[in-house]
């Protein structure tokens, strides 16, 4: 009996504490609207589909608009930065309510999340899928309910209102081209991939392979699974350094894994080898590392597309045309974004501050 009361009390206490939490700070990013509005000014794509600050009026609808966002997960700062861009746009329009769901890197959960958003009666769905193909049924459900569906980052090969994203294949090609040039078309490289089987890892790898097909002198010695993060990359690189006396470059799908590889290089006393680092992610910390020479190139993959996603959804609700949308290889339409150049020593200064994340880079262990 006592235990049951205790449980009820605990649940009540938790429930009572949540509104207090949500009052001034936005969920997940823990930022206030004031902070987000000043952050909005630094976003790269605010001139795409612009909407003036203030309440948004939609024909045939009075009162608040509810927009649902189903995100892959919030386990990576890139994903958090993407949400921050969306929250910043939301803060500009007082009559928009945002419902954010965390897919937890699980296609089954995300599929349910999207249906939950429909059940809540949202006016539009923003979706950044865990996995392209697996979210097809959920995307169909949204379209069948006549709710605008804006897909961001990873695409879904079925009908949608609009897809907004950059190509990981061409970005992979850009970074690999820079590597091939730096190496003079000759050399031994090791590859540390993103989480194996995930679509950006597959696409970045494809981009690299497209380029290496033109450079038979560049040999891939070995490939490891860095899972986008730092800790698995360290032992992988340590073991590669042990196995291969001559490594010219590391092609890593994520900045975090590149830092792991760099730590391993320093530990193995191989800094003097001048092993080059090619990476992706497009964080400000990564750009600073490029400027400092720790990385030779950083694929500029911006998370700041979710604000465009919201504006696109609002355009649809306001029955306004979306300039720049076009048909493409999948059903539905695509908004083509200007290509962000690969960040290298020459242009790093222009990009520092326009990437994502406000944390500092790891001190380069080879410069200690």
């Amino acid at each position, binding site marked *: 009996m006592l*235990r049951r009361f205790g449980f009820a009390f605990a649940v009540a206490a938790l429930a009572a504490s949540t509104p207090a939490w949500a009052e001034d700070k936005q969920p*997940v*990013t*823990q*930022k206030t609207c004031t902070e987000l509005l000043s952050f909005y000014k630094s976003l790269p794509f605010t001139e795409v589909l612009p909407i003036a600050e203030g309440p948004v009026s939609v024909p045939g609808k009075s009162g608040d608009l509810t927009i649902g966002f189903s995100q892959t997960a*919030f*386990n*990576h*700062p890139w*994903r*958090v930065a993407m949400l921050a861009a969306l929250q910043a746009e939301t803060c500009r329009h007082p009559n928009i309510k945002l419902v954010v769901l965390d897919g937890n890197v699980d296609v089954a959960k995300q599929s349910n999340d999207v249906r939950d958003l429909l059940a809540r009666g949202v006016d539009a769905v923003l979706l950044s899928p865990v996995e392209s193909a697996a979210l097809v049924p959920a995307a169909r459900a949204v379209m069948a309910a006549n709710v605008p569906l804006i897909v961001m980052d990873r695409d879904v090969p079925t009908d949608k209102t609009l897809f907004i994203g950059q190509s990981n294949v061409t970005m992979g090609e850009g970074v690999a081209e820079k590597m091939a040039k730096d190496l003079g078309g000759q050399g031994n490289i090791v590859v540390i*991939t993103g989480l*194996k089987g995930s679509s950006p890892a597959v696409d970045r790898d494809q981009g690299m392979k497209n380029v290496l097909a033109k450079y038979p002198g560049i040999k891939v*010695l*070995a*490939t*490891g*699974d860095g899972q986008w*993060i*730092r*800790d698995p990359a*360290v*032992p*992988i690189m*340590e*073991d*590669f350094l*042990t*196995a291969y006396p001559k490594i010219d470059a590391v092609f890593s799908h994520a900045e*975090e894994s590149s*830092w*792991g590889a760099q*730590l391993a290089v*320093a*530990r*193995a006393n191989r800094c003097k080898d001048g092993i080059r680092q090619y990476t992706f992610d497009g964080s400000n*910390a990564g750009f600073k590392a490029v400027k400092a020479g720790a990385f030779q190139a950083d694929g500029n993959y911006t998370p700041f597309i979710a604000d465009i996603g919201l504006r696109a959804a609002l355009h649809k609700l306001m029955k306004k045309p979306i300039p720049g949308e076009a048909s493409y290889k999948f059903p539905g339409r695509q908004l083509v974004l200007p290509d962000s150049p690969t960040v290298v020593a020459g242009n790093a200064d222009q990009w520092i501050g326009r990437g994502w*994340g*406000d*944390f*500092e*880079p*790891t*001190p380069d*262990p080879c410069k*200690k």
Partner: protein
Amino acid sequence: MPPDALTASRSRRHIATLTRGWQRVGVLAALVLLVIMASLLSPRFFTVPNLLNVLRQVSIVGVLATGMTFVILTRGIDLSVGSLLGVAVVLFAGSMDSRGTAVALPLGLGAAALAGLVNGIGIAYAGLPAFIMTLGMLSFARGLAFIYTGGTPIPILNEDFYVLGNGYLLGVPIPALVLLVALIVSGFLLGLTPFGRSVYAIGSNEEAARLSGVPVRLYKTIVYAISGLMSGLAGLLYTSQLSIGTPIAGQGYELDAIAAVVVGGTSLFGGKGSVAGTFLGTLIIGVLANILNLTGVDPFVQQLFKGALIVVAVFIMSRRT
């Protein structure tokens, strides 16, 4: 303890010690076999720098597995160790540069130990199943780590801290030394103190241990607090080796730790096993990962080897006893 219960437990302990001895020989033989195979497969495997690398690579999971051994010996399980590591990591990273090591170390270790204590109280006093209590803590603690950081990693600039994770003392990587100290202290606690004997007794037969006067609830609570403290220590190794405090640190490590304990011959049904076995189990898994990388085995295929190793090792061990 009544006299006949004492003799009974003594003779049981005698048998347990014997089988434990056998198991350890089995695990050791497996490790030796693996090392020989690895040396044949890659000329670079059996070199001092590589073996020291392996020791450092296994140090984090090794420390977790050492704490896990206490828990599994009592026939419990601790699924929260990876998340407690994560909490410790973000606390170390968040306070190291601003408040200094003297504040950061007790803060991170203390928080992890405290969470372990909460696990223990939930299991021993509130009667929750260990699986459920620690599963809840796994999610709860991970949530705390995310809230604390707002989902963004915290880089660490402190130089002394870098040395802790990357330096050497007498030619041995410091993290490996930390693991060895944790193993020796744990081995002493389990093998040579009344507390340690009670841990085995609780795992063999909790009711009998309680009847013979072992403070079962208190000791079970302590066991989870130890596991929490070890998670904090593993977090210290993580943060100092990787120079970063990320809220996802240690995700899934609980399964690696359980695998190391089980491959090391400790029974999931409690009462049988040792930290020495756990150390060997940790090394077996570490050497396997190392040789797969050295020989350039595709990462997709590496998972097959790891899975097969766990099943085969436990199958062989269960044949022996």
